[in-house]
């Protein structure tokens, strides 16, 4: 598993960088769902989209926080919790939900920017 020739901190730094790079594709995926939700005013396709968003934000919550990106983890958790409520109530997302997803996308862009600086 871990490479014994590198120190723990070196290896953690590499894993952190790999996570930051993965945020590009995570962001693209969430943005694609976000755009589809915007174009689904009657909510007819929203259940599958919200399930997808719920799954992605769940993964992001755990990974971002474990690599020290707590604000991103917190924002992902907020979106995940909101998705869970929508799925439980069989409700379509409201404008405030889309705003929340937009804030999450901004957070993702910020950490991707950090990756570009490193």
């Amino acid at each position, binding site marked *: *598993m*871990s490479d014994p020739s590198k120190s*723990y901190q070196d*290896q*953690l730094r590499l*894993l952190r960088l*790999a*996570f930051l790079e*993965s945020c590009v594709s995570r962001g693209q995926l969430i943005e694609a769902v976000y755009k589809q939700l915007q174009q689904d005013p009657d909510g007819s396709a929203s259940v599958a989209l919200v399930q997808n968003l719920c*799954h992605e934000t*769940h*993964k992001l*919550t*755990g*990974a*971002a*926080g*474990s*690599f020290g990106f*707590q604000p991103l*983890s917190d924002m992902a*958790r907020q979106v*995940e919790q909101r998705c869970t409520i929508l799925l439980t109530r069989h409700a379509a997302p409201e404008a405030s939900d889309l705003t929340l997803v937009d804030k999450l996308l901004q957070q993702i862009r910020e950490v991707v920017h950090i990756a570009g600086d490193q």
Partner: protein
Amino acid sequence: MRALKRILHVDDEADIRAVTALALEALGGYCIESCDSGRQALAQVEGFSPDLIILDVMMPGMDGPATLLALRQLNAVAEVPVIFMTAKVQTQEIAEYLALGACGVVTKPFDPQTLSAEVASMWQKTLFATAGSGNE
């Protein structure tokens, strides 16, 4: 007292598998085998003979609780303690995981720096509980 040496970790998220393995190997000195699904864990668990199993709760296909139930059907690992790892941290949910037979719950996100100590603490509590029930 039995020592904790070998840990099987099951999680569908590659980043979490990597950071968990690093933390438990480099800081805890444990031998880690990682699996990306419950099915893979069931295929590999008997060959690896873990002292402890860490299971992600939410995985596509076979989730953590379903994997735990399936593991309990395998004689070789039926008694191996299981810790759940989850971002779902409501008190009721944690109680449900413990009721399923888990010996502890690690909440995600976790601090890699303290993960091995947290796991070791849960392992110790399990050993004491097992020894205590054996003396009754």
